[in-house]
């Protein structure tokens, strides 16, 4: 993960969505990011209906044809239409990004909550494990997990999710620790409210903002990691379309058929950039200190 957010923002009342939205919309980059993400999400969703050709079916008559009126972005080494494969590849990338991050959040956030709230020896163990995972080079962890589970998209998502989990755990823990001593939390404990209730009703909503920001940035990172894994031969397997795998095969034809490299690379770039801009914009919008 190349961008991590270790920010400790003060608690934000959830009764100000309008203010957040207005701040967001004023930020041009954020809006561009949102548009990019929505566009690719739409393309991914509608892929089965808007793809002009079958993305998997090989066509030996049309091998590596340059972009033309028939194939807007050209064809690949097996004669498949690149535009169609880009649409279907969007499904792969977005799914990989979102599912990985969901896995990371589902495991990481509860761990962080537990560690930050109860502290003590639980915190000790969880923090050690998280630190150990963070000390291991992220991509290596993903590669080893991917190799262990076997090359497939599902396993790649699990591998990426597990590798990204520590960041969410640490972020959540930091957030929880910063607010657990606030008065309303202490008051709730004094009254005798059960911890679980406090966690769910008071703590969790207030750690959501930085998690949301981190999630968006993590999706961006996960998409690149999935592409990297596919590039190394783990991850989405042919003949299903994956931008990373498309780049990997395109390498052998860099000069003869440059369109095979350019378009998937651009697709990855635009999608990831969209998520990064979106995450940035969310962070600025949600931060009460910026104006």
């Amino acid at each position, binding site marked *: 993960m190349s961008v991590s957010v270790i920010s400790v923002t003060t608690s934000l009342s959830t009764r100000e969505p309008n203010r957040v939205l207005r701040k967001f919309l004023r930020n041009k980059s954020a809006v561009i990011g949102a548009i990019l993400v929505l566009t690719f999400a739409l393309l991914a969703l509608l892929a089965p209906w808007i793809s002009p050709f079958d993305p998997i079916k090989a066509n030996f008559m049309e091998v590596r044809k340059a972009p033309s009126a028939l194939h807007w972005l050209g064809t690949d080494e097996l004669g498949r239409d690149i535009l169609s494969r880009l649409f279907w590849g969007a499904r792969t990338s977005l799914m990989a990004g979102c599912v990985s991050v969901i896995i990371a959040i589902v495991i990481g956030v509860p761990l962080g909550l537990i560690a930050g709230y109860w502290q003590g020896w639980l915190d000790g163990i969880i923090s050690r494990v998280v630190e150990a995972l963070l000390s291991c080079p992220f991509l290596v962890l993903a590669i080893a997990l991917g190799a262990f589970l076997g090359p497939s998209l599902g396993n790649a998502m699990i591998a990426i999710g597990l590798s990204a989990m520590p960041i969410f755990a640490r972020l959540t823990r930091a957030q929880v620790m910063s607010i657990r001593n606030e008065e309303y939390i202490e008051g709730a404990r004094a009254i005798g409210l059960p911890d679980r209730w406090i966690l769910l009703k008071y703590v969790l909503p207030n750690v959501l903002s930085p998690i949301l920001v981190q999630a968006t940035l993590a999706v961006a990172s996960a998409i690149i990691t999935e592409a990297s894994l596919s590039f190394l031969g783990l991850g989405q397997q*042919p003949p299903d379309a994956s931008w990373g795998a498309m780049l990997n095969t395109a390498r052998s034809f860099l000069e003869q058929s440059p369109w095979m490299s350019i378009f998937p690379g651009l697709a990855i770039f635009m999608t990831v950039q969209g998520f990064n801009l979106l995450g940035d914009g969310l962070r600025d919008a949600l931060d009460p200190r910026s104006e």
Partner: protein
Amino acid sequence: MKFAPRLSACIPALLLLTTASLAHAESTLRIGLGSDPDMLDPATARTYYGRFVFSAMCERLVDVDQHLQIVPGLAKDWTFSDDGKTLTMNLREGVTFHDGEKFDAAAVKFNIERYLTLPGSLRKSELSSVDSVEVTAPYTVVFHLKTADAALLMQLTDRAGTILAPEATAKGNVAAHPVCSGPYEFVSRVQQDRIVLKRFDNYWNKGAYHFDKVVFLPIPDASVRLANLRAGDLDITEGIAASDTATVKGDSNLQLASTTGLGYMGLTINVGNGTANTNTPLAKDARVRQALSLAIDRDAINQVVFQGQYTPANQAFSPASPYHADIPVPKRDIEKAKKLLAEAGVKTPLTIDFLVANNPTSQQVAQVLQAMVSEAGINLNLQMTEYATLLDRQQSGAFQMSMSGWSGRPDPDGNIFSFLSTKGGLNDGKYSNPKVDQWLQEARLTSDVTQRKALYKQVVEQENIDDPLVYLYFEPRIFGISKKVTGFVPYADGLIRLQGLALNK
């Protein structure tokens, strides 16, 4: 205007001149390899790429020429006894090792025994027919064999016949610093980066070698290797991808040299390894396997994936081998394939799990196959696996069909025995046919070329009926060379031989 050059201004110029002249005096040949060789000890080496280094650094008892005929190496001449169980070799005199030791029959004995007894030696099976080695004169050595072995001489042209300096080998760490007797001696090695050799001044045939230094640069990525060649950072590289041949031919600074290799790629079918995957129509009925083979258009694979540079295959012996059996490669016949499947009582679509290595070329071929055979009603379920896992699954029988190749050996036995004989070490599909075993065994024992050819032809014909291994294509050996290099001759075994090579400035 007075012009008085200062001494300090002269110094850089002087330095430049000296370095330039020094650089000019030493010529270096830079060779690109597709992978970093493993250990540089012929006893434990197992990569194809290590053989490039051995070729430049060491000498073998015998060698092969361009046409894969055996020619003298460290042995001047040799004779077999009539029963084939004794091999007498007369050795070349006046040869010294890189550390000054003298080469003689005792050195040969030392090396062969080392290959036979060293714990990690991978040459044992190659020299399995050797019972003992005897020194009968300072430059004469006698091999006593347990059985006649037609393939032995060929084995001695490779690592099993490579002679290391006995004293240096006995005391030192061979893999770190091998001491041989070849035209170039070992200087240094940086893992994954380079292997540097320099000219051995006491080499008996010095005049044929025109470089002072040879540097091997392992660069796994074919496009980066080519980029290096085009940028002038490499003089020769092996392993030019089929898709890059047009680029090399179109570059005025480069030349292309290619030859049909000895290696092949095929589909190994699990017909008898374990019980998990052998209860299928594919494993039990030869007609299903024949249908599979008929559903494949080998020419199309060649065109689509390899731009026509490869050669369709129906046997283990490539056209470069004298043992290539003259049996035409079957053309694709979907109707016949469908008929065979129906005869075998198979309900289409028939699904087959197909194990494939996860490199781009194999993936491409696999996808082309998938598209082709689907028309005959066969569904290939591609399982891309990384190398270590693939080998594991093949060995344990956890596969139905696997795409696997062989880099090829000059002697036909090396291309087929281990794969098809019942107890063959590389027979992962566990194919077993007593007739084939017998023919293969006989071919090992006789040195008569005509006899061997006939025997192997029978094996090939039987293979095309049983189809335990569906051959796809033979791989060429394609080299990219700078225009400045002259005298390059491609050998079918793919190794680069430095004799006669020269660099024009």
